[in-house]
């Protein structure tokens, strides 16, 4: 780092360092986190709404907070380059959105298996076609079975905190798989909110490439090893077995990350009114609307609880199952058509039939609090009016 920063551990940085309040966009919040993360290198290819983040990361590179930065040819190249550089033992950051994520997906889903520690910002956007740049988080469904750790930020503050925490989690020796930090494009990335941030004179300790569960590659001294991981594609039982236990190891690493989710994020879920009969369970931007619906319900004297899911992978099955053990109905508002969150919740509790699949909005539609209230009234057996467009 060319700037004279004070390097500190993540516990101090996130939980103890004095903070000041700023009024900034989600894109700025993510870039400000990168500024304090001692990132060695950032690579990206622009796509709306991610462009704002990586433009700002380019600015902080120019200011000397990052050692290397370049714009790749496209996303598959970006994500492949991230893997190559991370294997050399440096701290990496990139971000993308919707179609860009899917274009880079072949490389991205190979990161966990190759034990690539890096942070991926996912600023969600409609997956084409028809062409649209609007917010919709269906792309997160494609990451859910990749093996990577997935955090989902509700607002600008979460985006800042989760991105910083992600750099610590991804490099833990017993984890060492990539972490994605998702938040909704435009709703969070291009809107301003209050963010408490520590001084930019502080930064996360630099990466120690020897503290890793795999050897780092020496990319500078020949003979360069072009592939670190052993080819196990032979057609024999032992090749199949090594691949199967390797896959297990990735998901075990994902599971081990949960203790760090507790350490840095205070746990994978937040619960309000744990004794309620009806619950709203939501993640990301939908959690902000769910929180507001919960406040409306409180004002109306209704027994409604709220659960925010901060961490999609590792999936907090035990925590959600315990929090919903007395629930009579579970409303899951989402910004996508398939309802990936409601499916996860249904599979986590013995009485999945109590999960209301919705309300869902997609294609860039906003999620009015009234849509959630309508489901609450129905769940409580009350009269409700249909919200009109």
């Amino acid at each position, binding site marked *: 780092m060319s700037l004279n920063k004070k390097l500190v551990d993540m516990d101090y940085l996130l939980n103890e360092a004095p903070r000041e309040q700023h009024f900034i966009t989600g894109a700025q919040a993510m870039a400000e986190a990168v500024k304090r993360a001692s990132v060695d290198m950032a690579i990206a290819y622009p796509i709306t709404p991610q462009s704002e983040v990586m433009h700002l990361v380019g600015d902080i590179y120019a200011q000397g907070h990052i050692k290397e930065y370049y714009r790749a040819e496209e996303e598959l190249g970006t994500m492949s380059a991230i893997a190559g550089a991370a294997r050399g033992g440096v701290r990496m950051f990139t971000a993308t959105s919707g179609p860009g994520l899917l274009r880079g997906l072949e490389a991205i889903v190979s990161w966990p298996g190759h034990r690539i520690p890096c942070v991926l910002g996912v600023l969600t956007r409609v997956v084409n076609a028809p062409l649209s740049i609007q917010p919709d988080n269906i792309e997160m469904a494609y990451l859910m079975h990749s093996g990577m750790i997935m955090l989902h930020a509700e607002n600008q503050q979460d985006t800042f905190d989760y991105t910083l925490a992600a750099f610590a989690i991804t490099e833990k*020796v017993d984890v060492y798989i990539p972490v994605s930090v998702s938040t909704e494009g435009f709703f969070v990335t291009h809107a301003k909110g209050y963010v408490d941030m520590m001084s930019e004179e502080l930064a996360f300790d630099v990466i120690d490439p020897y503290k890793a569960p795999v*050897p780092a590659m020496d990319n500078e001294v020949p003979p360069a090893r072009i592939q670190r991981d052993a080819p196990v594609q*032979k057609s024999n039982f032992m090749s199949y077995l090594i691949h199967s*236990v390797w896959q*297990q*190891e990735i998901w075990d690493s994902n*599971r*081990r990350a949960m203790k760090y989710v507790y350490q840095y994020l205070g746990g994978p879920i937040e619960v309000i009114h744990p004794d309620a009969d009806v619950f709203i369970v939501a993640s990301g931007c939908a959690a902000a609307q769910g929180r507001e619906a919960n406040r409306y319900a409180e004002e109306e004297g209704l027994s409604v609880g709220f659960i925010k899911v901060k961490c999609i992978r590792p999936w907090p099955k035990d925590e959600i199952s315990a929090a919903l053990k007395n629930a009579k109905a579970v409303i899951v508002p989402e910004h996508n058509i398939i309802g990936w969150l409601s499916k996860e919740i249904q599979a986590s509790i013995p009485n999945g039939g109590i999960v209301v699949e919705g309300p869902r909005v997609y294609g860039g539609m906003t999620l009015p609090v009234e849509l959630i209230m309508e489901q609450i009234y129905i769940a409580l057996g009350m009269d409700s009016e249909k919200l009109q467009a």
Partner: protein
Amino acid sequence: MSKKITVGPVGYMPQSAPSMGVELSPEGKALLYGNIVEEEEAMRDAAKALLTMDNPTIFPGPMVLWDWRDDVAEKSAAILDLASEIPNCKIIPMPDYRPKYPKIDVKAEINPNHPNLTILDNKIKACVFIGVHCHYANLTLRMIRAGTACYTVAMCAEMGHEEAMASIRDVHAADVLRFRDIIIEVRNELGIEYTTTMPPENPSLPKEDWGALTPSDYGEYRSLIMSKKGEHVTAVE
């Protein structure tokens, strides 16, 4: 104590220890059969296994075989000390992680992609992994548990391994020597009389001149030789 992780073979498709609810031990503690215990308890059980089971073997990995960090020489010397106190102990290295095709020399090395070949051929019933990178150690330990009847001990410089019967974490040279002392203690308790003798010189090997080594002397491992900072390697093939 109920044993969550037991000596295998546990079957065709092993379930991973973390998925069975085994968690890594906190600092200062160890894992024994998947349960969190005091370090000494785990070391004593491991010592008993190494002293009473057939063909005890130490498998040193790259982190104690290649002198790429300051503490390696001291730790490696401690491992030799440890081996010298275990009757009939063999040392079979895991020098790197590439699968060995067309056929591994099971008398000479072990490999994380097919570790049970070395275990089965040498009829090893108790072993110690040390200096193996955690990812590869986890794969290896699980495959051994799946397909062999071998008691595994993991001596890990980091957080340990759920898959091993006994897992000691944060292991440095002093911890290896402490384990050696426990081996001697348990050996005396078991009434095993043993005096350490160094292996005889092998008359068929030429006298080694370490000062005149070239990369070609390293055979198939020559690509793993790393130059140190500022060093310029001129003698390459």
